[in-house]
């Protein structure tokens, strides 16, 4: 009897990884390299060293959670690879990564930036535009991820299978 492909195993793993890696991208680029904001920079603006250390602690907590998401994603992906009914689809996996990153941007953007206001993407002039742009980027990723996952719905390569490669004469 034909096994029903269990795509959800790859999708869930990809979402966890995408959310974690998206969180790292946010933390590394926006918090640390560009220093546009910190986790609580609208609540306790980092105007002196004490406030910077305060915000650094909470940035560390944020990164701890993104690290946990990546660990969970690796674990779920490894588990998915053990099952023959899980199609090993690049489109599904990449789509799931995008979906995870997009979900992170939208959910974190709405909750932290808009509802709670604990920080904003780029505080100051055009603050709302930056915040909405961040959410819009997340929505774009969600749509792209969904399209890729749908495109990968018919992929059937099982884990560990060798893809068919044209052999070239020596």
């Amino acid at each position: 009897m034909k096994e029903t492909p269990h795509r959800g195993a790859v999708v869930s793993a990809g979402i966890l990884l995408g959310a974690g890696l998206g969180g790292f991208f946010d933390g590394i680029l926006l918090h640390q390299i560009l220093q546009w904001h910190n986790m609580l920079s609208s609540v306790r603006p980092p105007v002196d060293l004490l406030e910077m250390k305060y915000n650094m602690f909470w940035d560390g907590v944020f990164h701890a959670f993104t690290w946990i998401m990546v660990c969970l994603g690796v674990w779920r992906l490894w588990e998915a690879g053990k099952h023959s009914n899980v199609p090993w689809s690049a489109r599904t996996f990449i789509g799931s990564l995008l979906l995870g990153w997009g979900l992170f941007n939208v959910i974190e953007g709405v909750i932290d930036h808009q509802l709670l206001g604990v920080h904003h993407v780029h505080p100051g002039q055009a603050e709302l535009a930056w915040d909405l742009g961040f959410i819009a980027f997340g929505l774009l990723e969600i749509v792209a991820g969904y399209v890729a996952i749908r495109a990968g719905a018919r992929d059937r390569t099982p884990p560990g299978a060798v893809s068919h490669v044209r052999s070239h004469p020596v």
Partner: protein
Amino acid sequence: MAAASMAALALTAPASACPGCALGQEARREVWRDDFFPHLAVAVLPFIIIGAICARLHTLGRP
């Protein structure tokens, strides 16, 4: 200008990376004193929501 930058770095570097200094201890006290659990909830909430979405989507295609 370069000398001034180096001097500023020299002044702040030990102050910012100091496990036992007074400023570090004050920052840690502030963290625990100032709405620790609400801030922790804010940090973890997006990931809990994403986890719930994941759990739902994991059933996709499962017999």
